[in-house]
Each structure stands twice: as structure tokens, then as C-alpha cells.
């Protein structure tokens, strides 16, 4: 088994209302922050130990289902 973490974020330039609302609250609290973007983390177990083939499989999963390539970017971390 290989543990994989997929991080999904909204593409630059597309509206991220949660990020905007949270940034506003952080500014109200006195924290000087620039843009705030929300994302999603998905932890997966893949039944394969070859890193290259795990990456290829998870990339396909991201393209087809886990991310919406129209509005989201994704990154893949192989943890173990």
C-alpha cells in the first residue's frame, strides 16, 4: 500500500468566496494577509508500491474525478 495525498485548489483568477470571506475575517483580527485560497485534501491508499505507476494512477483519478480541471489545480504527494 502506498499512502498518497492529493491537494486540490481553485485555479488562479476564479472566484473563491470562502477565501475572500476568511481573508476579511483575518484582516478584522489584525492579521495582515494577502490572498486566501481554500482547497481540499484527499488521502488515498493505493494498492501498488511502484511510485511512478502510483503517480500515474492518481493523476488519472484527479483528471477524471477528484478534481475538475476546468476550475481546479491539483498536486500529488506520495507519502510512503
Amino acid at each position, binding site marked *: 500500500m502506498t499512502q498518497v495525498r492529493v491537494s486540490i485548489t*481553485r*485555479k488562479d*483568477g*476564479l*472566484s*473563491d*468566496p*470562502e477565501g475572500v*470571506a476568511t481573508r476579511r475575517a483575518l484582516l478584522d483580527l489584525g492579521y495582515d494577509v494577502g490572498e486566501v485560497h481554500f482547497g481540499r485534501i484527499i488521502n488515498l491508499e493505493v494498492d501498488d508500491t511502484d511510485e511512478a505507476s502510483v503517480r500515474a494512477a492518481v493523476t488519472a483519478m484527479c483528471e477524471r*474525478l*477528484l478534481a*475538475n480541471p*476546468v*476550475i481546479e489545480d491539483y498536486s500529488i504527494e506520495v507519502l510512503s
Partner: protein
Amino acid sequence: MTIGRRVAVIVFPGSNCERDVAYAMQLLGADPELVWHRETDLSEFDGVILPGGFAHGDYLRTGAIARFSPVMTEVERLADAGTPVLGICNGFQILCEAGLLPGALVANRDLKFICRPVHLRVESTDSVLTRAATVGDVLRIPLNSFEGNYVAPAPVLDDLENGGVVLRYSDADGSVSDAANPNGSLNNIAGIANGGGNVAGLMPHPERAIETVLGSTDGRILLESFVASLDRVTA
């Protein structure tokens, strides 16, 4: 006449507007049937509607899992063949996830669930959703969604603006402004269609505005457009 034209109203786990849609179809002279999302043959139908709700719990993203329900391969086949396909609210989100319509729907600008009537201006009559309407008509129809904020990358939006936008949020006079934009949708987009005009989607619920008792009958013209489109093509 279009009486008896068969419309498949797809039911996903979590759909909740299918009966209202079926009722509306019947009222307008079509012959609707509720079809479970695991069905793989829709060849007996003249049109397909994906109704509102929370298909598959809206997990992952709205429409993301429904897009892979077994019935969707068949919906894609019919859409490609020119059959009228309409997505309302969650159904619109599913059509976008499936790539049958461009762009995506994300959380409303103000992060509030919106449940109220809105005004829509008809922008194009070149779709199964608007062909019986007139450009410039203003319709008052309920909006009922949290993820109704239409987004698309700039090139996709530019392409869509060449006739693909069929409805925009407006005020009661038909003026399109930021103040009349309930959810932050780019260019006030409320409804769009594909290049062929046979696949259309909108966030508001026309099926909830078809009888005086519902407060508005403005949704009729949109659903009448759909019913009138049913005998044009059969896949």
C-alpha cells in the same frame, strides 16, 4: 402537437425535484417518466431532464459523482445525437461536470443559500430552453441553490458569449447589473446552452413557476420551449 412525447426525468440518489418536473411536463403535454440513474438505455425517449436536488449528496463537488452514474453515458450519447437535454439546478451542475456544458458552478458569492424568486432576461432563443421565448423577455422564477455561482476560464467564457448564454440575472426591468446578480455568476449568467442548442442548463427552477398558485407562471415559456423541441430530433 407534441402530446405523448416521452421525457426521461432522471432520478439520482438525492434528487428531489423530479416529481415537480414530471408534473410540469405532464401539464405541458409531454409524457414524463422517472428513470433511475442506473438505467443505461434511454432510446425510447425524446428528451431528458436532469432535475434539481443533491445527487449523491453533492459529495466531492456538486455533480461530480452523478456525472459517472451509469445513465450518464447514455445521456451523453443522446446529447451528441441532438436530443433535447435540460439540466435544472443540480442537473445543470451535473451537465457541467460531465462536460456537456462548459464551465462550473461554485459557492455563491455571499456564501449564503439563496431561496427566492429572481428575474431573468432571455438572451438567446437558440436553445431548447428558450426557443418559444423572445429575446429581452424578463421572467420571474425561483432560485434555490448554494452553488449557483457560474464560473469559467476567460477563453471559455468568451466562446460562450457568442450566443451560448441564454438567460442572465437581471432586475425586473431587464437591466443586467451587479446589483441584480444574486450569486456572483460571471456576466450574470443564469442559463447556457451548447453550440447545437439541444443541451441547456439553468440554475433557477422553471418547474416551480408554472401555475398562478405558485406565484408565477413565467417558467412555462421555458418548459414549453423544451416540450416543443421534443419532436424535432430523435436519436
